[in-house]
């Protein structure tokens, strides 16, 4: 297989452009509905989530799934009508309730009322997440800060190892991957009500790291090729660099996505969407490294009159392997 990166670059850019545009539209729609580009979870806006499983040792309670209307009745008695409810688990015996932030007394009252009306629930498999609004903001701002700092760190590192234009284009590719992942989750939020939590920020940061990986490997090859074949047009150098690293790109994406697919299939509820975000981001990252970052570099070099020689880089360290016996 041989890809014509440069020749068909308008096609690659169109694909990327459309995906990014769709993502932006999804974020805008999400903004209208939730006041945020994504459906924000408990972690960011605060609130309480109770997950209760019915004890199934007493057989007659477990023959039927939990009745949502009964749950709603209990909730409205407690003045918690606007809560969102979900029935989970294979036998529909797990109840998940998301409400405003409840203090300890309110929570205890709610739990005992539910226990009486629908229970008994198994205390040893209860999950409580209660996050105050202050903590929520804190989690969000610390997450965004981490994201910005790692952007800066990567730009600095790549500028030192390569050149500033490589670094900036790598960041551009990275923004593309982040935008597509966020867009995909905006869609999931709109369609399936999927909420993002602080793990989503973790996934974005991981995508950042990986996406840069991919781009760096190709840039590394471009740099090496321009040294080995001075006087070749940048377009040809980029073309052969991408094709030389294509096998690696595909295999690495495959081997990283495989364990993630395993998490989506076998992992618990919380990790599922985390893994899904990573899969989307990594695939976008592989695409952008192969098709976007490389072709943008070629375009940039051509436009800025550096299409042929790259003296600054050519004079740097030699990459031929050492001659040695051992």
């Amino acid at each position: 297989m041989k890809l014509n990166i440069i020749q068909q670059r308008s096609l690659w850019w169109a694909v990327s452009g459309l995906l990014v545009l769709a993502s932006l539209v999804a974020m805008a729609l999400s903004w209208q509905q939730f006041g945020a580009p994504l459906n924000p979870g408990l972690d960011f806006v605060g609130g309480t989530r109770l997950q209760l499983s019915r004890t199934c040792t007493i057989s007659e309670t477990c023959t039927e799934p939990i009745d949502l209307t009964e749950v709603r009745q209990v909730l409205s008695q407690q003045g918690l009508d606007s809560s969102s409810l979900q029935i989970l688990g294979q036998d529909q015996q797990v109840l998940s309730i998301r409400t405003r932030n409840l203090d300890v007394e309110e929570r205890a009252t709610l739990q005992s009322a539910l226990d009486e009306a629908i229970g008994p629930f198994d205390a040893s498999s209860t999950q409580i997440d209660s996050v105050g609004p202050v903590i929520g903001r804190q989690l969000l701002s610390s997450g965004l800060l981490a994201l910005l700092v790692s952007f800066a760190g990567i730009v600095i590192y790549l500028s030192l190892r390569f050149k500033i234009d490589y670094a900036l284009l790598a960041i551009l590719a990275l923004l593309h991957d982040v935008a597509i992942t966020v867009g995909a989750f905006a869609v999931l939020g709109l369609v399936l009500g999927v909420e993002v939590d602080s793990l989503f920020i973790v996934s974005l940061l991981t995508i950042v790291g990986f996406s840069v990986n991919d781009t760096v490997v190709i840039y590394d090859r471009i740099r090496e090729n321009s040294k080995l074949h001075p006087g070749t047009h940048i377009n040809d150098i980029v073309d052969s660099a991408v094709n030389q690293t294509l096998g690696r790109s595909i295999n690495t994406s495959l081997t990283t996505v495989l364990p993630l697919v395993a998490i989506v299939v076998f992992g618990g509820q919380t990790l599922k969407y985390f893994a899904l975000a990573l899969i989307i981001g990594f695939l976008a990252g592989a695409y952008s490294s192969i098709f976007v970052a490389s072709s943008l570099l070629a375009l940039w070099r051509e436009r800025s009159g550096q299409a042929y020689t790259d003296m600054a880089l050519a004079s740097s360290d030699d990459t031929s392997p050492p001659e040695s016996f051992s």
Partner: protein
Amino acid sequence: MAKYRAWLGVILALTIAAVVIISQIPTRLGLDLRGGSQLTIQVQPTEAIPTITEREMEAVQTVVEGRVNGLGVSEAIVQQLGNNQLLVQLPGVSDPQQAERVLGGTAQLEFRAQRAGTEQQLAIENQVLQGHLGELAAIQATLPSETTVDAETQARIDRLQADIAGSEAAIANLFEPSTLGGDQLTDAIARPTSGTLWEVVIQFNNQGGNAFAELSRAIAGTGRSIGIFLDNRLLSAPTVNVQYAETGITGGSAVISGNFTAESARDLEIQLRGGALPLPVEVVENRTVGPTLGRDSIQRSLYAGIVGLVLVLIFMAVYYRLPGILADLSLVIYALLTWAAFNLLGVTLTLPGIAGFILSIGMAVDANVLIFERTREELRSGKTLYRSVESGFYRAFSSILDSNVTTLISCLALFYFGAGLVKGFALTLAIGVIISMFTALTCSRTLLFLAISLPQFRRPNLFCPGLTTVRP
């Protein structure tokens, strides 16, 4: 080849060490995996104390630690988080509601007069209490950490804790209720006296000073004591000398002296100051996972991890043949080393932490993929097998380095700015990335060179199926 034999020895030794570490040092599991409550407690500034300093945080932390001990959860952890929050981890807590109630209140410090005729009773109750406390400490010292306690020991611990609570209530009963509380105490300072002895100076505001003079006058010379209670638990019960029988201790300040060492004086100082702080604390975050749910998570993540690893191993062996199988071997060694590193460094493994680990497997493979792709290229261009493998490693190195450093930069940012679970993920991913570089560059390399030193493996076809280039 001697060099590679030596490396093989090192790798074997490391692997054996890793297996020993894994079997000897238990893996620390986060609360999301083994069940328990994690609470974030925010200290609220008040009009009187608009900014919270290190000194105040220290005092509040002591109060919270005292309450946590009162809950009787073994291996509880209280840590400062930022400059106005405390993180409390309560593994295996059975009643998160109670924990939240107990930890969330403002500290109650009280100075109470001892009831008449209870002198002997106090001494006896105190002795009983000390006995219980000693017994509990002895049990907890022998407990292996991070494992579940057997039912019998747990029952003993529960009984002791009930006894302790009973003794404390009995002691509190020997004192009269009082209105002189922490809100009227302005400061407490530990200071050395003569020799190695220490004392604690306490200071009241005007109103408190008067109340204390009254209280001490009533008690002076009777042989009874003034009980200083924090959250209903007796901290200290100093008596008042007969010389104050006329006026009481006036002037708004008093000295508690006794058999204090530097350490015990400082403990009392901080406890008093904690009780004096009118700082309300609030539980702003509660994450509780039931123990059964936690076990379920472990099982699921373990499945996911094993299935993921097996898929990757199969892919590598099928696609890269001989080097793929060798890479698989070094991947397994990688997994063992990383696991051992987690145990050795005391990394607390959380759900996101396991995800970080699984992800780092992907990174470990990437290094090998880069090397093998490069080796194939060199073979296709007609180099000898040995030279191809050599330059495969050499040329892939800068890519491996750059890609891993960028991931490490992200990890660093995550670890530094992230909170809780995020930190765990960053840490496991970073450890994984560092060890993966080591195993890719030593393990895979050593195994490959040893393999091609054997004639039966020295066939380029084993490295690059369908190799057509004729050697020049």
